[in-house]
């Protein structure tokens, strides 16, 4: 049996190609969630996608990861066209993502959840696993070590034996991040990675994300409502509203864009103002 041997992958580390989203359109019955959206993620950069609730950010991720099908438009990741590929083929190209609504198994431990991220990088099929071929054992051993490394990096090593689903919300978000990292992605899609965290924890998580980009040199697309984190991390920001791109550019520029302020930020802006609110 040769069941699910991983697809041939074109990825060699260090060669992160650019992600090109061209005129991407997604329609649902009676609703256009994405309307001819285009943007480019330069290799190794961190690109933030922001916008009001329901603007189409997660929908965009869903298309990029193959969960939804685009009604029109294209997504190219280097030489590969992502539109139309099933999720596992996209994963095989080195695209990893986290979920806005946590998607962790209810009983598996954190370690096992992270190991699942290694799926595409490992080969052992039914025969190898069933017969316990030494190759399968060696492979598992090697990848467990890497999982340990990633757990240490994300600060999860204390929880490796815990069932992931019983962890508090913020830690579950971290497990999601760790699992995506375990896929050794070339493109990492993060959907609201710091939602539900305290300021302290946000900072730590932001540091992890920054560290990922530094250490691995991969591209990251970040959806986040925490403007602090976005400003801090992003090289480039695209703003969506009602499925349309209303602005894009460097963070500081975008933040001043009146359209963005009207649709998204509101005139009270961010934590400084919030603090004023408290002290006044």
């Amino acid at each position, binding site marked *: 049996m040769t069941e699910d041997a991983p697809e041939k992958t074109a990825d060699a580390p260090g060669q992160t190609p650019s992600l090109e989203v061209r005129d991407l359109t997604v329609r649902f019955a009676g609703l256009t969630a994405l309307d001819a959206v285009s943007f480019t993620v330069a290799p190794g950069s961190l690109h933030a996608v922001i916008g009001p609730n329901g603007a189409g950010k*997660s929908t965009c991720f*869903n298309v990029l990861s193959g*969960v939804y099908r685009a009604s029109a438009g294209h997504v190219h990741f280097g030489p590969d066209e992502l539109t139309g590929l099933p999720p596992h083929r996209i994963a095989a190209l080195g695209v990893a993502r986290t*979920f*806005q*609504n946590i*998607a962790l198994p*209810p009983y598996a431990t954190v370690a096992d959840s992270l190991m699942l991220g290694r799926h595409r990088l490992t080969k052992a099929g039914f025969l190898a696993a069933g017969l316990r071929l030494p190759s399968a054992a060696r492979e598992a051993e090697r990848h467990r070590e890497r999982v340990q490394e990633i757990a240490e990096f994300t600060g999860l090593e204390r929880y490796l034996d815990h069932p992931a689903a019983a962890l508090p919300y913020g830690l579950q978000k971290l497990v999601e991040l760790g699992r995506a990292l375990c896929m050794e992605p070339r493109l990492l899609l993060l959907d609201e990675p710091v939602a539900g965290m305290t300021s302290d924890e946000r900072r730590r998580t932001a540091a992890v994300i920054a560290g990922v980009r530094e250490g691995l040199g991969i591209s990251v697309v970040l959806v986040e409502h925490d403007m602090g984190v976005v400003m801090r991390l992003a090289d480039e920001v695209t703003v969506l509203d009602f499925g349309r791109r209303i602005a894009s550019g460097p963070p500081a520029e975008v933040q001043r864009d009146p359209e963005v302020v009207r649709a998204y930020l509101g005139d009270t802006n961010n934590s400084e103002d919030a603090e004023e609110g408290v002290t006044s």
Partner: protein
Amino acid sequence: MTTFFELLISGISLGAVYALIALGFVVIFRATEVVNFAHASLLFAGGYVTALLTDDIGFWAALIVGIAGAAVVGSLVEFLVIRRYRGRDHSVLAIVTIGVDIVLLTDLTRRIGTDVLPLGDPWGDKIVQIGPLAIPETRIAALLTAALVIAVFLLAFRYTSWGVAMRAAAEDREAAALMGVRLGRVSLSAWAVAGALAAIAALFLTVFPTPGLERNTSLVALKAFPAAIIGGLDSTTGALAGGLIVGVTEAMVTGYQDELSFLGRGLGEVAPYLVMLLILLARPAGLFGTRELTRV
């Protein structure tokens, strides 16, 4: 041509009975997301109580007691078993209902033993003649009942608080409890209603042209499975459509058995399943069922 229409009519009338049974599955499925494999034994229980009493207290009274009896059995199943399940996996609960079914069926078949029990209905073997077509009165009654009951449920699910509470509880018990839904009561009422429906289905399954309730009756109820699936497990309209499709398929294939004999004889029972497979290939959630929603 007459043969064709005779078969069509006979199929539709048989289908009405299947639809009634399938509706029982649908009610439980919508209320609890559980496929109730014990439905056949609820049906058996209802029929048995009716048959037992019909000589002593008359048919209508017996029918009412039978319906109530099956409702009680349904409630007991909920109260003693379903309610006590703490997990979240609906497949496991489905398997639990298999266990319940085994216990109930063993008991009822033991009681019924070797008898064939007539339900003493007022329609007897009377026939309504429409042109060259003969339709048993019982089947017209079944069709009307099925249509009525299904309409009532359609409205109830959609427009009453009971329906909203039931669907909410089925999807997320905790969130429903946070809305003030009394989970126990809702689920109990669903099972009671399913029991009552089963008893009504039992009536039409065991009156003319079948001789009465006997140990195989519960097996016949299995034929409502493809009906429920073809229509879509969570759709009341689907139950009706599925029931009719199964009934007509079965009647046609049986009636034209000679022409189809290259597929082997006795295909009538198998044909609905083949139809079901074909439909599932095209529509994985049945004709009227809601597709699994995934939003991440």
